[in-house]
């Protein structure tokens, strides 16, 4: 009886402490709750109005808007006369490593608005950390298209051509019968069942989300370096990266080839190389590199490196990561200079009061 009483009081105390710690963790913005959802028609999405807290090389604290993306909450129904540009890309585009108002989406929107005061300019950030080109394309087809963008910018690098399929809860492209098809069966696997089971709790508890993150790390190859610090063999630390970031033969990526070919043929798509290196010749041909709707940030980065600017170094944390604050400004200015001629060529996009794209889209 005494033992039962002891255990009961112990459990109640732990439960009470967890509630107090949960409140502290949430109010102190130490960790956020699970901020994703799984939409059966889109896959894993950012949860509407969910808080996010990310400490990477910079710090990013905020909320996804009511439509599940970062930035101003532009309604899917585009206002009459607005010019709407959708950004698709990976973590560089999504920007969960810095303040939103310093990200190139925000800066570019501001600059474009100043240059075209008669037009309402809207830049919508549909970037998603971890996405590759095929993920971005599926996201555009299932989600971005609902927002009727006039232009879509794909901000990518050669690595994005490798179809990684790292998230079991997003649709994936495959080739069958010589055509590109989208597998939407992500709701039928064990991953989805587990997600549904856990989501209710993880979306309510930051402490449990933190525990889950730690558990995932404990299962990963990084566990030994976390526990053993510099005593962990260097091979352990590196193998994780070697395995996950080994560049295979990009030219074998048939899915990506088909996607980029389709994108290159569309008049409403602008492809942006966000890397400092040139793309392999094969991809340059797939993506119609000489097309007016290709923006290469490589020359910008080459110029910045020549002037001694480290585009990825963060003074605040002494880390190398994504584009730092100054680089965001340079990228904005460069993109603006490249976008303006494209916009001028597409006068109907600028003057069309109906806000509906008038150029024919390439067949999907």
């Amino acid at each position, binding site marked *: 009886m005494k033992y039962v009483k002891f255990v009961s*009081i112990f459990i109640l*105390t732990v439960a009470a402490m967890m509630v107090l710690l949960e409140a502290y963790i949430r109010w102190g913005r130490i960790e956020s709750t699970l901020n994703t959802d799984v939409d059966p028609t889109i896959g894993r999405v950012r949860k509407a109005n969910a808080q996010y807290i990310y*400490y990477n090389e910079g710090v990013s604290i905020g909320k996804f808007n009511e439509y599940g993306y970062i930035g101003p909450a532009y309604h899917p129904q585009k206002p009459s006369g607005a010019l709407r540009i959708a950004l698709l890309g990976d973590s560089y585009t999504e920007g969960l490593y810095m303040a939103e108002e310093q990200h190139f989406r925000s800066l570019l929107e501001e600059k474009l608005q100043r240059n075209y005061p008669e037009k309402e300019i809207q830049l919508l950030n549909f970037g998603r950390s971890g996405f590759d080109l095929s993920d971005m394309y599926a996201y555009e087809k299932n989600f971005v298209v609902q927002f009727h963008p006039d232009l879509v910018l794909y901000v990518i690098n050669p690595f994005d051509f490798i179809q990684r399929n790292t998230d079991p809860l997003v649709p994936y492209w495959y080739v069958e019968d010589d055509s590109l098809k989208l597998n939407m069966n992500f709701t039928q696997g064990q991953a989805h069942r587990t997600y549904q089971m856990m989501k209710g709790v993880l979306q309510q508890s930051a402490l449990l989300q933190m525990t889950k993150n730690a558990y995932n790390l404990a299962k990963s190859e990084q566990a030994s370096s976390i526990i053993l610090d510099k005593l962990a063999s260097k091979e352990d630390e590196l193998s994780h990266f070697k395995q996950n970031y080994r560049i295979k033969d990009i030219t074998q990526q048939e899915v990506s080839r088909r996607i980029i070919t389709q994108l290159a043929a569309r008049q409403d798509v602008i492809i942006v190389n966000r890397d400092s290196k040139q793309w392999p010749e094969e991809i340059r041909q797939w993506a119609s590199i000489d097309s007016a709707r290709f923006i290469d940030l490589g020359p910008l980065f080459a110029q910045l490196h020549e002037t001694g600017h480290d585009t990825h170094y963060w003074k605040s944390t002494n880390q190398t990561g994504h584009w730092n604050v100054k680089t965001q400004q340079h990228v904005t200015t460069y993109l603006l200079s490249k976008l303006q001629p494209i916009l001028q060529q597409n006068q109907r996009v600028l003057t069309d009061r109906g806000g509906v794209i008038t150029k024919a889209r390439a067949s999907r």
Partner: protein
Amino acid sequence: MLFNSYIFLLFAGIVLPIFFAVPRRYRNHYLLLVSYLFYGYWDWRFCGLLAFSTVSDFFLGQWLHDAKTDRRRKNFLWTSIAINIGVLFSFKYFNFFIDSFQEIITPLGGNLDFLHLSIILPVGISFYTFQTMSYTIDVYRRNLTPTRSIIDFGLFVAFFPQLVAGPIEKAKNLLPQIINKPTPTKLQIREGITLIGIGFFKKVMIGDTTGRFVDRVFGEMEAFGSGELLTALVLFSIQIYADFSGYSSIARGLAKLLGIELIRNFEQPYLSASISEFWRRWHISLGAWIKDYIYIPLGGNRKGELRTYVNLMITMVLIGLWHGASWTFVVYGLLNGIYLVVHRYVLNGSKIAGRYAYKGVKSFLFFIVSVVFTNILVMITRIFFRSPTFADAAYFVERIVQWESSPIASDLVMMSIAFAVMTFALDAIEYYTQRHDYILQIKHRAVRYGILTSLFFVVLVYMFQYEPLPFIYFQF
């Protein structure tokens, strides 16, 4: 190795059980070896300097004690001080003074670049040099008989729980305990585990969590708005306290597990009603050292008011400099000195109030206002403490004065409130119970275990996910 790391938990998990298995007469040998392993983990080269400091003061202490004349005793004392200050000066202050002179002579065409040393600051050097100096000074003052065991003395210098960030122990407190080779009692073990749990929570869940925001903002101030800068200052005040007091609690807890009692280094300083009271509650071991070995020898408050003010300014500037070789730390010290002088002038001979005792609503409100005012004064000095240069400190002030609102203002306010409430709540409990291991005051064992289990759990989970931040005071 950092206390808030898994490698340290592994280290302690191996070292502590073996300690209990080692025969008592060899425990000091064992702890000395373990302490050098602990210290050498940072950089094995540091062990050489630690050993040099140890050996020199061990022999100087004996020669000092055995010397027949006052002159010889003084010579040995000054030799010890010269060696310790010399080591400190070479590693910590030499480049600072070279750079400062450089700024003066450069307009005159001079250049001292060739004298600049490429040198790493050994971890904990400011702590253990002060600790060994206290030994030889106390031997000189005949307050202490020197030990004849180099193992015992070596352990006094290198005792790993307090080697790298204090508390700075007086030899007359720590050395006799080491010589006695105590076995921890059951009560010490309970107190030790409790202190470690509370210390880890403060260090990791308050210190590290605030620190990651603070470091990013202060690391690149121009990238942040006024709201973020002010939040970072408030959070830095919380971070430095949680970080240091958390570390001190862990150090005390570890020492208790080894049967050793270390002094308390903090007594709820952010509940101080005046700046004078603050300096009696903040980094107590450093304050006691400076008072005993600098302030009182200078005359303390025994040579008239004006001399007292001068002595206060000198000691506070030295405290500032102790923290770092930079003019911002000198200004930090100067500001605190000015605060103390003004407070002493205002007191006009009255005694500094002790612990607050409730005497009614009016006195309570006055206490709250005094506490808030004192914290604001302290926070102002933190601008200089945290900013890498004067230019950064001036830039910080300018950005606060020319206020721009932030889009994440509500998040910043919530963060500040959450951390402030947590810090003040823990301090209020300490203040009320007058204990740092207040969890042990709870009658029901199951409740005590439940609280400690929860604290350890959340700390371990956080530590796995995020890279540990070093203790701020490691850099000193």
